[in-house]
C-alpha cells in the first residue's frame, strides 16, 4: 500500500535519513519523534509535496515522484487526505465552499450531500454556511478533517493534529481520525510528539 525505500533529505549540511516504511491498507500508524527529527519532512515527502533528496515512495503501484507535476497534484487530490498541525480554512470561503474546493481541485463534481454527510459525522453541520472566522479552534480542526476525508482518500495523513488542542478536543480529534479511517477502510498515518495520542495506536515508527 505505502512503501518507501532509502528516503533521505537534507537541509544545508544537515542530512535526514528515514526508515523504510511498509504500511498496509487499513492500518493505523504513528510516526513518533522529537521536534526536528524530520516528522513533518517525512510526512510532506509521503504526501507528495516535497521531493526527497533520494529514495522512492510507492503508493499502491504508483511511484509518487515518477509522476509529472500535474499528475502528482491530481493523484494527491484524489487519493491522499492531509490534516495539518495548523487547522486552516480559506478565509474568503464558507465551510461548505472550502469543502467544494477540495472536490473541485481533486477533479470531482461538487457533491453537497457528501459534504452534509461528513459535516454531520463530525458534528459541525450547523457551521456549514459559516466563515472560518466564526469557528472555534476545535471546530476549525474538525472542518479541516472534514476536508481531508471528503474525497474518501485511501491514505489519510495527519501532522501534529492535536498540538494546538486541549485534552478534550485532542481526544475527540484522535477518535475521529481513527473512526473515519476505520469506517472508510483507508490507511491512517499520524505524525506527532504528543504523548496523549500514543495510547490510541498500536503501530509506530520512531524517528
Amino acid at each position, binding site marked *: 500500500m505505502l512503501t518507501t525505500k532509502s528516503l533521505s533529505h537534507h537541509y544545508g549540511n544537515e542530512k535526514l535519513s528515514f526508515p523504510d516504511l511498509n504500511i498496509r491498507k487499513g492500518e493505523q500508524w504513528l510516526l513518533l519523534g522529537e521536534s526536528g527529527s524530520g516528522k513533518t519532512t517525512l510526512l*510532506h515527502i509521503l504526501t507528495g509535496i516535497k521531493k526527497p533528496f533520494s529514495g522512492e515512495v510507492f503508493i499502491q503501484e504508483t511511484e509518487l515522484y515518477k509522476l509529472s*507535476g*500535474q499528475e502528482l*497534484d491530481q493523484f494527491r487530490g484524489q487519493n491522499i487526505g492531509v490534516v*495539518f498541525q495548523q487547522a486552516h480554512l480559506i478565509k*474568503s470561503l464558507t465551510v461548505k465552499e472550502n469543502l467544494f474546493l477540495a472536490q473541485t*481541485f481533486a477533479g470531482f463534481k461538487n457533491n453537497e450531500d457528501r459534504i452534509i454527510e461528513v459535516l454531520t459525522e463530525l458534528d459541525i453541520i450547523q457551521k456549514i454556511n459559516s466563515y472560518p472566522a466564526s469557528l472555534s479552534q476545535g471546530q476549525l480542526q474538525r472542518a479541516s478533517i472534514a476536508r481531508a476525508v471528503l474525497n474518501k482518500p485511501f491514505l489519510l495523513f495527519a501532522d501534529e493534529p492535536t498540538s494546538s488542542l486541549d485534552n478534550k478536543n485532542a481526544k475527540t480529534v484522535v477518535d475521529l481520525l481513527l473512526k473515519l479511517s476505520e469506517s472508510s477502510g483507508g490507511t491512517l498515518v499520524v505524525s506527532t510528539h504528543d504523548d496523549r495520542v500514543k495510547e490510541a495506536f498500536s503501530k509506530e515508527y520512531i524517528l
Partner: protein
Amino acid sequence: MNLITISWKSLQFNRLTFFLNVLLIAFGTGILTLLLLGSTQAGEKLKGNANGIDLVVGAKGSPLQLILSSIYFIDFPTGNISLDDAQDLARNPMVKRAVPLALGDNYAGFRIVGTDTSYINLYNLKLKQGRFWRKDFDVVIGSEVAKIKKLKVGDKFNGSHGLSSDEDVHEGNQNTITGILESSGNSTDNLVLTSIESIWNMHGIEKDHKQSGHQSKKEITSLLIQYRSRMSIVLFPMMVNKSTSMQAASPAKESARLFSLIGVGVQTAKWFALVVMLISAISIFVTLYNSLKDRMYDLALMRVMGASQLKIFMIIMLEGIILTGIGSVIGVFLGHVFLHIIGYFQDSPQARLSGFYFMPEELHLVAGGFFIGIMAAILPAIQAYRADISKTISIG
C-alpha cells in the same frame, strides 16, 4: 466551484480595496471613453454640417465666427453683407452653387433662417409632413424643433429678435408651420427655415424699400459657396478677401483650426486618464502582491487539495483580470452616461452630444483594461506559481 468563483470570492473578501481599484480603473476608462466619443461625435457633426460647402462669405470679422454662425448656427454672425454684392459673387463663373442665409431671429432658442430652395438641395432635406414655404411667414421646422416644442403643421408662433432669447417678440407677424423636416442628423434638425423675404418683411425692410423707391439695399448674413472646380480653392477666397468688403472663410480650414485648439485640452485629458490607468495598474499590483503574503498558506492548501501550479497562477491572474474587466466596463458605461448628461446641458442643440453613440474602439478600451489587469497580476501570479508548498505549510 470554479476558478472564477474562487477569484471572485477572494476579491469580495476585501471589499474596500476591491471597490477602490474598480473605481480607479473605471475613472480612467470613463475619461477615455468620454474623450473618444465626444471628440468623434463633435468631428462628425462638424464634418456632416459642412459637407458640400467649400466656402462661406460674410461680413468681415473672425472667420471662425463666420463658420460657426453660418454652418453650425452656434456663434453670433459677424454682421451683414449687401444682397447686391452677394448676388454678384454668386454669378461668378467659379461658383457652382451659392446659398444665401439671413439670420437674426429665433423661436425659443431655435434659429430662424431665411434662405431659398438651394439650401434644401444643399442638404438634401426631405419633408416628413406638409410642404415647403410658398409665401411670407410660411416656415418649415426641423425634426428636433417639432419634437421639443411639440409643434405640428398648421401651428403658428411669433419669432423673437436675436439669436438666443425670446424677450423681444415680433408681435405683428405670426409664422405658420407648413412643413416638418425629416431628421437628418445635422444642424438643420434644430432650425426654423423660411424665405429670405419673410425675414426682411419681419423687420420691415421690404416695406421701407418700396416706400423709399431706392434700389435694393437689402442685406443677408452670409453666402454658402460650392465651387465649380477644385481649381478655385486658392483663387476665389483671395479674390473675395482682397477685392470686396466681405470675407471668405473655408470650413475645412476653420474646423481644423478649431480642432487644433480643442485638441490641446483633449490631449491633456487623455494623458491624465492614462496616468490614472497607470496608477490603477500599480494599485492592483500592490493589492495582489500584498494579499499574496497573507494568502500563501491558502494557495499552498489548494495545491495540497490537488490544484496544479497553473490553476494557482490562473486564480491570481483572474483576480487582476476581473478587477480591471469590471472597472473598464463600468468606465465605458459611465463615459456614455456622462456624455449624455453633458449633451443634455449643452447650450447649442446643433452640436448636441449623445450617450447613445457606440464605437468599436470602445472594445479596445475594455481590452486595454484587461491588458492592465494581466500586467498588474502577472508578477504576483508567477510568485504564487513558484511557491514552495512544503515550506509555506511548515512556516504556517
